[in-house]
């Protein structure tokens, strides 16, 4: 079955080359001594130093971090609530419509989401800045959180909650003491996903931000229009690192949880 063949090896190489060569080049040139991006002049970390002395970049990084933390936290709360209601409320009129509407923004083009939010913020007279970017990111990230959390809740044994109620918990206590600890890994990976999505976003942020709140992707994009500097390469390398760490952590958490769940189920099956 899994026999090595030249065809497989070549397609694998090309595939990964296609995906990763641009990033490898970017990471490599972030360690370039020369100011010219296209000429290699030896290894150096001086552009990282430059970067950390550049106040504009540091401000942008601070804005981005705040936006990501707040929006992913909000998105996690809202997304978990939405998932909980959609899974638990049973059949009510329009349930299919609601769950469809939760997932629709996943495939909505960013430009449209951004524009719609911009019109809303102008309409209600909200000054554009960190707050509006947080709200915008919450809006699109909560769909992702709700997808992750609802897939966990779908396999959650509802009698666990009933048992908690039966043993004297109020519904809120049952959620806090039983449901939440059990679905926590899904909630955490939802948060990490939301966090990285917010960190990445350029389009929606540039629609909804104001002059006071420039996020890193916006800063990079506008800096690059004046020419690519090694500083940008260094910054991008750091961002790649953060996003990779986030994605890997999220997938490790959900993977480990899945493995544990399967092992428990097997143990249960054996015990019978």
């Amino acid at each position, binding site marked *: 079955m899994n026999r090595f063949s030249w065809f497989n090896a070549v397609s694998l190489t090309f595939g990964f080359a296609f995906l990763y060569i641009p990033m490898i080049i970017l990471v490599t040139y972030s360690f370039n001594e020369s100011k010219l991006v296209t000429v290699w002049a030896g290894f150096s970390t001086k552009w990282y130093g430059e970067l950390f002395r550049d106040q504009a970049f540091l401000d942008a990084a601070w804005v981005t971090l705040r936006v990501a933390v707040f929006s992913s936290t909000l998105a996690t709360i809202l997304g978990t609530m939405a998932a909980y209601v959609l899974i638990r409320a049973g059949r009510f009129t329009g349930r299919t419509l609601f769950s469809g509407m939760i997932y629709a923004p996943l495939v909505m083009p960013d430009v449209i989401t951004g524009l719609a939010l911009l019109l809303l913020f102008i309409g209600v007279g909200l000054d554009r800045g960190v707050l509006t970017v947080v709200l915008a990111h919450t809006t699109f990230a909560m769909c992702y959180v709700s997808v992750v959390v609802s897939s966990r809740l779908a396999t959650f*044994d509802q*009698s*666990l909650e*009933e*048992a*908690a*109620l*039966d*043993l*004297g*918990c*109020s519904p809120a*206590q049952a959620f806090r*003491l*039983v449901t939440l*600890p*059990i679905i926590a890994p899904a909630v955490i990976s939802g948060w990490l996903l939301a966090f990285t999505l917010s960190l990445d976003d350029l389009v929606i942020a540039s629609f909804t931000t104001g002059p006071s709140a420039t996020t890193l992707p916006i800063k990079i994009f506008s800096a690059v229009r004046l020419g690519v500097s090694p500083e940008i390469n260094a910054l991008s390398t750091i961002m790649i690192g953060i996003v990779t760490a986030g994605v890997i952590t999220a997938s490790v958490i959900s993977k480990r949880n899945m493995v544990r769940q399967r*092992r*428990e189920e097997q*143990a*249960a099956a054996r*015990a*019978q």
Partner: protein
Amino acid sequence: MNSTVFAPWEDPEKKPLIRFQNVTKKFGTFTAIDNLSLDIYEREFFALLGPSGCGKTTMMRMLAGFETPTSGRIELAGKNIIPVPPNKRATNMMFQSYALFPHLTVWDNIAFGLRREGMEKDKMNARVEEMLRLTRLERFAKRKPHQISGGQRQRVALARSLAKAPTLLLLDEPLGALDAKLRQDTQFELMDIQEKTGTTFVIVTHDQEEAMTVASRIAVMDEGQLIQVATPDRIYETPVSVYVADFIGDVNIIEGKTTLIEDGQYQIDWAEGQMPLHAASSQPFDKGQTCFVAIRPEKVAISAEKPQAADNIVQGKVLDIAYLGNLSTYHVELADGTIIKSQTANTRRIARRSFTWGDTVWLSWTATAGVMLAR
């Protein structure tokens, strides 16, 4: 030894612990419970028995507070409990899936309900230890639910639901997930624990043997209604309908037309060319009324020679023999094609058996062996 029989349901002065009054529960257009009234007394081990979908689980969930009846009244110790939410009821439930909290240890699972009550630490520790001892789980206190066996999990679920010393314990198919051998042991354990704690137990099961073993009284249910509520022996010996007779144990049902001979003695014409049967009934039957005679296989004697005197004697051929070790069930086909089952204890070695497949045998039973049923 206390010789008085435990039978509070026969004492008209006794107040029931639980009282269902004309309870109806509808799910949409489906009627799960149909205008049902039932009294359950303190210290009873009461079984709700029936096939799946008969409404037995709905009854239990209404007692626990997870379902609200569409109409009617449910009383616990004289008080209407319908508006009381599950967390405020003096009932606890043992779930079919056990519903153990996977993120907590056995100890913490058992202590869960006590913590919610805000019990003092010393008292709580003592209570949890007591529960662990009662269910023989001391060694597993620090383990998580997935680290113990199915039988142990079942006992954790029981310990957890008993920890708060509920007035009423509800058990939803508590032994369904255990294998046959373990189930038998656990049945006796359950009875033992019920006696020790003096708690009223209501068990839901579809397993008639389980209900017969553990229960003080059984309610046989079908399509949201109670068909018969009685002690296990009365359910077995004097079922009120063919449905109950057929649901509990093995039975021969013979349909025929009645004729009164003298008081309580009836003659039943049941097939062309066959001698009429004789049966006794305290219930009056009209002449020519259709009736069903239910006879348990163990009350039908089988012999190679024609018995001298018996109220009912029929002849047939052995069609099948089910050998169970201690018992054998013979399926005997009569001349008209009717099959009658006869069960005998294998008190002699099987080689000594005087008949086998295809042999002509005689079946006989007394007039009082069967029950005459109108439906």
